[in-house]
């Protein structure tokens, strides 16, 4: 729903993201739709014109991310919409499929066609298609300097004369380019290009014209690329039959004519000096080397993982401290006990949980934005594709898989770099099975308590099991869902240093979009769990205990008949490591009671915490700090009293696989809608139950 002026397509996915973007249209408002091939620098342009207003959200009814920004240009409110990169108007991936409907949804919008000067002939094919829509448009030539470096000089004036629409060259100093673009937008014209199509094609298109919106639509209907106009379909079928009889393949003929026209246009507007090769290819001889390449990939993935979690950890700790201090202040105030409990147990706890994802997501989005815009992600896809295809996933899925060892939430956010929705969904549904760092403390505690001699083996085994289930799920979903798979035909764009402001603004916009859509659900679940613990039934037990006792018989076949064990699984839905705290409370009778800090002491602690976080961020760049968790000996002793070893194994397997934590669910809902979130809950819980039961039954 990034498109601020679009209300259409109210599907569940769209509805889920409605909250993420909202810009009200005003009177003197206009929209510019940025269209161009992938990696052409559309987002850099939008950043240069109105970067501080950058917002991201899903296009209505889809999972395709669209960035937009609204700014005031010479007294008019202009909304810039950055449409996904596309090589042609008739899409070849679920991202590209968004472009044409988006353009048709804004009939009044100005089309700003951003063209890559280093691939002029190819990009002009899209330009020619766009002119055939018969809409006012402007062509912006980007990467002119890079083209000059490679020995290709350009003459925008010649191109403008030939095309009949304004053409501006954007210099690398993009601020000036924006001004030129604004000047050109005032001269914007609709001039359908004259493309020498074969006579028969032109006649057939003319006969189709009354049924469709533009010449482009007539040609696309003729070549069966677009089939959404029912009236035109019958006419197109007869026209196709006539052409077939004449031995003309309309698709090939149209594509060929456009290509020739584009090559001619490009040739006319290009002053070719000695053409030099792209320097990126020289780098790729090392980075894509059959032996060095995979090594570089492993090193790069490890570095990405390290940076994502090491840089964000001090800040997560700092926000934890803020939460503690705030709870202390609430405790110090003289409030009715119920309100105080709600404030610290539900509100501060819930907001703290939401906020704790900000550092990790922001760091991840900075890294992703860099990798994407620098052209590195395409190389990751190239190197990992062979291996990942073996488990039914595209090469780019390697990054979410690796990230999910740390935390599933950023991993699910990272799936948006997969081009095809089907691939994205498959990967996102498989990810929750991979053990994240929140599950590790529980495994360590339980393994140390029940199989101290084999603790390492058991914990490793759980990680292997998680990966195995994830891979099996991915293969299963490929079979069952039958969603189209993304193509492996992808450009390896030139390496480029993306502007820092773009990467940071995009990361912040993406983080904000997650908070807006995930904050509510997380708060709700935390409040419900607080309510369960808070409400005391007439017979003296808490509601939490009653619910856990009711559920316990269900888990008896898994060897988990004790209500305290089952109970630990309920609050663990917020974050799985909470299971330990819950068991500590029910088995030992006391949580980790820390003395609340006073107002001044709290402020002091915050200041020290802030400094520590800043220092740890710097030190974390070259090494992991921090030690392991201490194992609570009283708790382990009591646990072994009420669980058998087989039951403990079943508990760990169940905790590994059951309902993804609430933040993961919110991320799934954000990306795919409530239905797939519900599916994930049912799917994971079923798998968890069956496997835990199997482990309990088979444990010697």
């Amino acid at each position, binding site marked *: 729903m990034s498109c601020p002026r679009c209300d259409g397509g109210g599907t569940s996915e769209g509805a889920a993201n409605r909250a993420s973007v909202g810009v009200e249209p005003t009177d003197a408002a206009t929209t510019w739709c940025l269209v161009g091939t992938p990696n052409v620098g559309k987002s850099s342009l939008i950043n240069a014109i109105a970067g501080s207003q950058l917002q991201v959200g899903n296009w209505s009814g889809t999972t395709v991310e669209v960035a937009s920004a609204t700014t005031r240009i010479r007294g008019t409110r202009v909304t810039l919409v950055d449409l996904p990169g596309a090589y042609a108007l008739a899409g070849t991936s679920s991202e590209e499929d968004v472009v044409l409907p988006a353009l048709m949804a804004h009939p009044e919008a100005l089309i700003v066609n951003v063209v890559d000067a280093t691939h002029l002939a190819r990009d002009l094919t899209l330009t020619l298609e766009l002119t055939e829509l018969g809409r006012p448009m402007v062509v912006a030539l980007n990467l002119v300097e890079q083209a000059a470096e490679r020995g290709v000089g350009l003459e925008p004036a010649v191109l403008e004369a030939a095309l009949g629409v304004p053409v501006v060259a954007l210099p690398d100093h993009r601020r000036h380019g924006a001004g030129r673009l604004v000047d050109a937008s005032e001269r914007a014209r609709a001039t359908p290009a004259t493309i020498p199509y074969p006579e028969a094609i032109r006649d057939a298109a003319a006969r189709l014209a009354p049924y469709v919106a533009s010449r482009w639509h007539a040609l696309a209907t003729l070549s069966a690329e677009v089939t959404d106009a029912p009236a035109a379909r019958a006419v197109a079928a007869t026209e196709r039959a006539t052409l077939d009889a004449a031995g003309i393949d309309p698709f090939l003929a149209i594509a060929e004519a456009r290509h020739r026209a584009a090559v001619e246009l490009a040739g006319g507007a290009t002053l070719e000096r000695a053409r030099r090769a792209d320097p990126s290819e020289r780098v790729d001889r090392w980075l894509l080397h059959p032996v060095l390449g995979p090594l570089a990939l492993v090193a790069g993935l490890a570095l990405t993982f390290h940076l994502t979690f090491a840089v964000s950890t001090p800040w997560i700790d700092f926000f934890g401290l803020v939460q503690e201090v705030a709870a202390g202040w609430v405790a110090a105030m003289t409030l009715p006990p119920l309100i105080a409990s709600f404030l610290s147990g539900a509100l501060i706890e819930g907001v703290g949980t939401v906020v704790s994802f900000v550092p990790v997501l922001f760091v991840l989005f900075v890294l992703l934005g860099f990798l994407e815009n620098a052209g590195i992600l395409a190389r990751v896809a190239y190197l990992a594709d062979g291996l990942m295809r073996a488990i039914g996933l595209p090469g780019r899925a390697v990054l979410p898989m690796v990230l999910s060892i740390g935390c599933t939430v950023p991993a699910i956010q990272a799936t948006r770099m997969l081009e095809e929705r089907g691939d994205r969904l498959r990967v996102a549904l498989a990810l929750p099975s991979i053990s994240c760092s929140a599950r590790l403390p529980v495994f360590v505690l339980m393994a140390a308590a029940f199989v101290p001699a084999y603790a390492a083996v058991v914990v490793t085994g759980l990680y292997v099991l998680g990966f195995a289930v994830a891979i099996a799920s991915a293969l299963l979903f490929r079979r069952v869902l039958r969603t189209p798979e993304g193509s492996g*035909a992808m450009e390896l764009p030139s390496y480029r240093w993306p502007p820092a402001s773009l990467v940071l603004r995009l990361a912040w916009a993406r983080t904000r979009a997650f908070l807006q859509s995930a904050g509510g659900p997380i708060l709700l679940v935390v409040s419900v769990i607080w309510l369960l613990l808070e409400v005391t039934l007439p017979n003296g037990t808490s509601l939490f205990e009653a619910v856990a006792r009711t559920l316990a018989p269900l888990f008896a076949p898994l060897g988990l008949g004790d209500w305290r064990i089952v109970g630990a699984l309920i609050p663990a839905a917020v974050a799985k490591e909470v299971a330990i705290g819950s068991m500590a409370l029910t088995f030992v009778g006391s949580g980790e009671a820390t003395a609340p800090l006073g107002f001044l002491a709290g402020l002091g602690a915050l200041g020290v915490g802030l400094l520590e976080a800043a220092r740890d961020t710097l030190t974390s760049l070259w090494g992991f700090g921090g030690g392991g968790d201490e194992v609570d000996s009283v708790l382990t002793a009591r646990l072994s009293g009420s669980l058998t070893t087989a039951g403990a194994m079943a508990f760990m397997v169940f905790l590994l696989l059951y309902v993804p934590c609430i933040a993961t669910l919110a991320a799934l809902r954000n990306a795919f809608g409530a239905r797939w979130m519900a599916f994930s809950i049912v799917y994971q819980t079923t798998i968890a139950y069956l496997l835990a039961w199997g482990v309990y039954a088979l444990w010697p």
Partner: protein
Amino acid sequence: MKPDLATGDSAHATAPATTPATTIAMPAASAAVQTGTPPACAPCCVVCPLSELGRGGCARVVSLAGAPRLQRRLMALGLRPSAELAVLGRAPGNGPLELRAGTVHLMLRACEARDVMVEVDDPSTLRMPVRQAPAEDAYVLPTV
């Protein structure tokens, strides 16, 4: 996947370093007439799927097959009939091919490359020697 082509290394190992460029010079007219290829084709050319090309191979696209969506994508990326391309590399583990077609630097999965028929001027750049071709019908060899 044909078993003979499964691993890159063995295929490379079996490819002999024979057939230097000079030995494939043949009367120009015959090849062009009999294979029905455009006259631009070198005297002797082999038509085979792009997936058969090894690193360093150069070829010209003859035709595209497969799903229409993929065909459109390939055309848009510059793999259109009569376009020249070069194989810059192949990723390990039967991974994708790294190609240059015109000004475009791109990757293409081996399974998708099977849908692209190309004509190769220098058969020594094929991963499998032509004589040991697993499927006879995959090649159109000009008869002299």
